[in-house]
């Protein structure tokens, strides 16, 4: 079972280590982890995607809440959230592959953000499963290197 945790933490040195250490110490999975400052510079938001059975999922939330640097834990399913991931992919191209790459970019709504005579960098920001599709498509051409943010997510807007 997949679960997304949106964890507000004190923006202090060592907190990332404490949180990630908690996962490794208790053998919880981390499928993805992304961290960034929030509108309050003293607070960071960690978006953690994890998976496990019902008991594990509850324990992750409780153990996170137990950490003194953790201010608030929100947890939700993928279907109740908007999730996005940003990926930068550097690919090698030549005359014969250039068109294909550009077509893939067009279909996948990705942008070419840098280019040389042999390489180009493609940027895509999309749902995690579409990022995977993009990666698979380009694998057959020629990937030089890849950088990904990991999943960012917020619960969907609901009117009360």
């Amino acid at each position: 079972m997949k679960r997304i945790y949106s964890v507000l933490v004190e923006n202090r040195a060592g907190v990332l280590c404490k949180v990630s250490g908690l996962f490794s110490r208790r053998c919880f999975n981390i499928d993805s982890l992304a961290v960034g400052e929030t509108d309050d510079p003293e607070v960071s938001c960690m978006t953690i995607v994890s998976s496990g059975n019902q008991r594990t999922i509850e324990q992750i939330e409780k153990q996170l809440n137990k950490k003194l640097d953790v201010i608030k834990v929100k947890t939700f399913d993928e279907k109740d959230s908007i999730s996005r991931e940003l990926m930068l992919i550097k690919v090698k191209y030549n005359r014969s592959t250039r068109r294909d790459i550009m077509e893939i970019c067009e279909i996948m709504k990705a942008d070419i953000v840098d280019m040389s005579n042999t390489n180009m960098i493609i940027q895509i920001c999309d749902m995690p499963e579409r990022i995977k599709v993009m990666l698979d498509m380009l694998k057959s051409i020629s990937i030089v290197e890849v950088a990904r943010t990991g999943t960012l997510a917020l619960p969907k807007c609901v009117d009360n």
Partner: protein
Amino acid sequence: MIGADAMVKCLEKEGVTTVYGYPGVAICPFYNSILDSEVKTILVRTEQNAAHAASGEARVTGNVGVCAVTSGPGATNLITGIATAFADSIPMVCITGQVKSELIGSDVFQEADITGAVESFVKYSYLVKNAEDIPRIFKEAFYIANSGRKGPVLIDVPIDIQNAAIKNFKYPEEVNIRAYKPTIKGHIVQIKKVIKELEKAKRPIICAGGGVHLSDAVPELRAFAHKYRIPVVSTMMGIGVMPTEDPMYFGMVGNNGKAYANRAMNESDLMIMVGARVADRAISQPDLITTNKILVHIDVDPAEIGKNVGPSIPLVGDAKHIFDDFAKEEFTCEHEEWIAALEGYRNTMIQKRNPNPEYVDPAAFITMLSHEMKEDAVYVADVGQNQIWSCNYHIVKKGRFLTSGGMGTMGYSIPAAMGVKSGDMSKQVIAVCGDGSFQMSMMELATIMQHHIPVKIIVMKNNYLGMVREFQHYTYKDNYSVVDIKDGTPNLEKLAAAYDIPFIRVENMSHAQEKIREFLAEDNTMLMECLVDPMDLVK
């Protein structure tokens, strides 16, 4: 005023009377400042025991135990003591010296990343970066250690911060940590639910853990159990929640506990588990205890509820407050047949031992010792066969029973007993260990003598690491591996003489009682050696 003065001042403000520790260069400013204070220092012989001593003191006084050691090896030596306290939720503040701030990270002499190393064994840790933060950090550390689910907090102070000037020392009145608000009061809806189930229950039972001692809920729990005649069993850490001979007490549960206690737990239709984490040694198959009963789980730590077993009624809060709230409700609870059945089990399911008359029978000896001790004495059991015999045969009256339950740290008893005695000199304190565990902390005999801390020490000598030998007896068909300590164990009589400690040897049960009386006659340090059959078993 410098940082080190501020650290000492903080300890004074918190009412700390004793610091256990071992100095080194990186903590020298602190140890220099403490000379001008009323706070007493006790120099242990290895840092691990500073933590155990602080733990012993904390457990009987209810105050936060404090230890202070140097950087690098001093700090890393402390880790086992910190982990031991963490496993048993003992409130402690551990102060470590650290190398100069600007050198942190460059692997200089006696540098260790102690906050990183203890992360999974502390409730919280601080690396002080600014001397002006010292008052706030100490205030928070003491509050965190002794509130909610208690535990050790570590403060790592670089030497330059200890030496830095502080302009204004102001000890905060209050603590405000936005991410830390422990739930103390139990939810009234849940409390009412429990009462409703109790009214229906035919076979209710309370299983009390160490959390009942930690929240000081012993009188409330006893009153509740007596008023509604609810039988009580305990975990190892819960021993002493009820006096052993209380008619409502039915022994320690678990694979080393009483058969009748386990039977009582298994047959109950409603179990109130309070301040216990359902660990494997107490309850080997957690799923089974939920199949035929309503399980109420009371704990101040929400993460404990549902971790090892899914309760029917979770109840988060401090045990003392919750039993206070129970006392405010009026209800009826009838189950005399159940009590009669349990009394029957208690009278008939008695473990038969066949003691070898040539040696001391640990079971008979410990019971005899219990009756000779002062009623409010503190009994500190070490880890091993001595611990299991102590759990099963020591009769708690008005005193306390302490041991390292969660971590099972050998060598705990002597330093912890030392801490207990120094925390309350009026108490009779007896440490019971094996010849293995004794040798893990026998260096503390020096501390005991140097600081005049009269502790009674009993060594159950069987020339083996008995608990492991017993495991190898059952599991490896007597193929003993690395458990024989006969040849290296020192002559304890000569060892005691070397420290000027009076010594008594008990070879068998024939004169045991007189020897126990002689051992306990005065409030002085004494070492007693009991010769136990090397082949004796706890089961």
